[in-house]
């Protein structure tokens, strides 16, 4: 059974300027021990999905579709049960984690609090567990008496990871967990996340705009554009043999060193990601797409088969229906 099952998820922010459809029908599932990488640019809806899974959005945000965490329907959870599910069912490591720690509380106490609030242990047991967690994320347990300002950015992110693991969740959502960190520290944190995920058999949703990071940590990849998944498949294959032109453009933004195709030839897309309130007709990517044909302006592509265990929403993929049948 999959740990997380998302079907036709739609999230709409209601603002004074009208409705903003941030996520427009997204389906995926994550199995136990599996890492799904979700990539896309700012505004594509990837973080909105993270928020929706734990229902972190402000009131007034419309969430439709199906969201099941270990078979339990998240969208109909009562507040008490929802609180229990956060941290124990699924937890999040944020990008802004560096500011998410309480500056006037020792880090050990902060981890301990997360455990105790959920009634998982007595104070003494929680303190022992907090020390063990710190050790697990590569910090000496004596650092539990430190305040956040005594830690470096990478160490703070390690503390955030320890907290996310505190209540032994089955799903960990990592939303740009390494973006604000230095290159070498970023690699260390990724290595840590990957080994924890492997050792604990966690299901993980890993969100970032940096495709090259995702290839390293994910089993599967889903690429988002304008609120929808446009391509999905095995991580390595999606990155190295993209079927959707947008995936190809994203992959080209993070060229491999030694790849002579990109030497002195930075590859980029013209234009900007679309405004969620003004999504182009047909394929939302067509105004920026070098391979767009007339049909792209009218045909809304679905995730069609694009090879073994691969789907892409582009009229050019092998599994796309013949254009005559779609146009009529």
């Amino acid at each position, binding site marked *: 059974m999959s740990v997380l099952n998302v079907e036709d998820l739609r999230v709409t922010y209601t603002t004074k300027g009208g409705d903003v459809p941030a996520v427009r029908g997204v389906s995926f599932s994550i199995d136990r021990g599996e890492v799904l990488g979700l990539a896309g*640019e*700012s505004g594509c809806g990837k973080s909105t999905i993270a928020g929706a899974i734990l229902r972190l959005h402000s009131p007034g945000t419309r969430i439709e579709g199906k969201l099941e965490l270990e078979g339990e329907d998240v969208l109909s959870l009562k507040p008490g049960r929802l609180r229990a599910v956060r941290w124990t069912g699924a937890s999040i490591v944020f990008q802004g984690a560096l500011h998410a720690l309480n500056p006037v509380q020792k880090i050990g106490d902060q981890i301990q609090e997360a455990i105790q609030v959920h009634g998982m242990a007595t104070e003494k047991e929680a303190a022992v567990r907090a020390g063990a967690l710190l050790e697990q994320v590569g910090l000496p347990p004596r650092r539990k008496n430190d305040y956040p300002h005594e830690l*470096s950015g*990478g*160490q703070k992110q390690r503390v955030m990871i320890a907290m996310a693991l505190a209540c032994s969740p089955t799903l960990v959502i990592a939303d740009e967990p390494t973006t604000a960190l*230095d*290159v*070498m*520290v*970023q*690699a*260390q944190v990724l*290595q840590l996340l*990957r*080994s924890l995920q492997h050792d604990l058999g966690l299901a993980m949703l890993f969100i970032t*705009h*940096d*495709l*090259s*990071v995702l*290839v*390293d*940590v994910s089993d599967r990849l889903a690429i988002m554009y304008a609120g929808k998944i446009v391509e999905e498949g095995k*991580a*390595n294959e999606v*990155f*190295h043999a993209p079927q959707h032109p*947008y995936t190809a*453009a*994203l992959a*080209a*933004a*993070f*060229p*491999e*060193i*030694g*790849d*002579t195709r*990109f*030497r*002195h*030839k*930075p*590859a*980029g*897309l*013209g234009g*900007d*990601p679309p405004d969620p309130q003004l999504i182009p007709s047909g394929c939302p990517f067509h105004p*920026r797409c070098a391979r767009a044909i007339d049909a792209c302006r009218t045909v809304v592509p679905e995730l069609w088969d694009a090879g073994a265990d691969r789907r892409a929403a582009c009229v050019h993929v092998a599994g796309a229906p013949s254009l005559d049948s779609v146009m009529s």
Partner: protein
Amino acid sequence: MTDTEEARSESLQLGEPIIEIDDLEVNFAARVGLISGLMGKKGSDAKAVDGVDLTLHEGEVLALAGESGCGKTTTARALLGLIQPQRGTIKFRGKALPRDTRSLRPFRREVQMVFQDPTGSLNPRQTIYEIVAEGLRIHDIDEGPNGETEEDLVAQALSRAGLRPPQRFYLLYPHELSGGQRQRVVIAGALALEPKVIVADEPVSNLDASVRGEILGLLMKFRDELRISILIVTHDLGLAWTVADRVAVMYLGRVVEIGPTEEVLLRPRHPYTKALLKVVPEAGEAGVIREILQGEPPDPTRIPAGCRFHPRCPVVASGRAAELGIEDRCRGEDLPLAEVGDQHFAACHLIDINQQP
């Protein structure tokens, strides 16, 4: 690897030097707490840049790479005269930079800066036209070399930066533009002054992935068409691979390796360069646990004796340095850059005994 073979560089042709940095040193005074200060304690100064020699040639794209705290941004800022160095000289076309702000003005016109965060470097209350025209006004330029009016110059800069038609952008404010467009405005502002050199500090790291290539392409175009020299400060070696002719890798205030991009990135001679390259994913290597330098970025207030990289150096840690009989030198003997190939230099004790990192 055939890619590597193909990428073997024919000898790199460099133009005349346009900027020469010689033995640059920049310190930042240490901060001490009130009590310790009253008790007469002194902190140790941070040596952000500790003896850097660097030359930028006409029409060259040079990438300055390294972790945060390695001194790459400080070097760039000293180059622009934004920081006064404690030691060393910076020459522009063979002439040393003056120290006072007023005499720096003509130089500042020739050397323009593009910062990382376009939103932060644009005045939110100015229109795009005003922003681009401001540099011209500061430098009292009301006419171009061919009799262009201020408006002509602004329009030309905007359209060169890819904001077309330029008139459409005149009256817009920065908040009405996307991130990529804002960075183009910053670039247009720099271009309007027809500089000879652009110093770009992480010019694309705040931009969306798909927009990055366009901005980098723009910089490449200026180099090709206007022969502008470009110094790109970046932590991203992939970016250096895409745009740079030469790469300089900095560690704790020093350049530890410099040379043609293909040489430095495909055949690194310094263990630190090799370590930096390890964090960039490679083809077909997904999921492989790579050897990653442990520990935090180094602290410029405490520069280790000997080779400054030795406390983190995998060659020392693995015992290979001891086997090769150079460990004592790594720990105790500081060293300058040594030539390891055509225009390729690195500072490592392994080079002396002809070993690869």
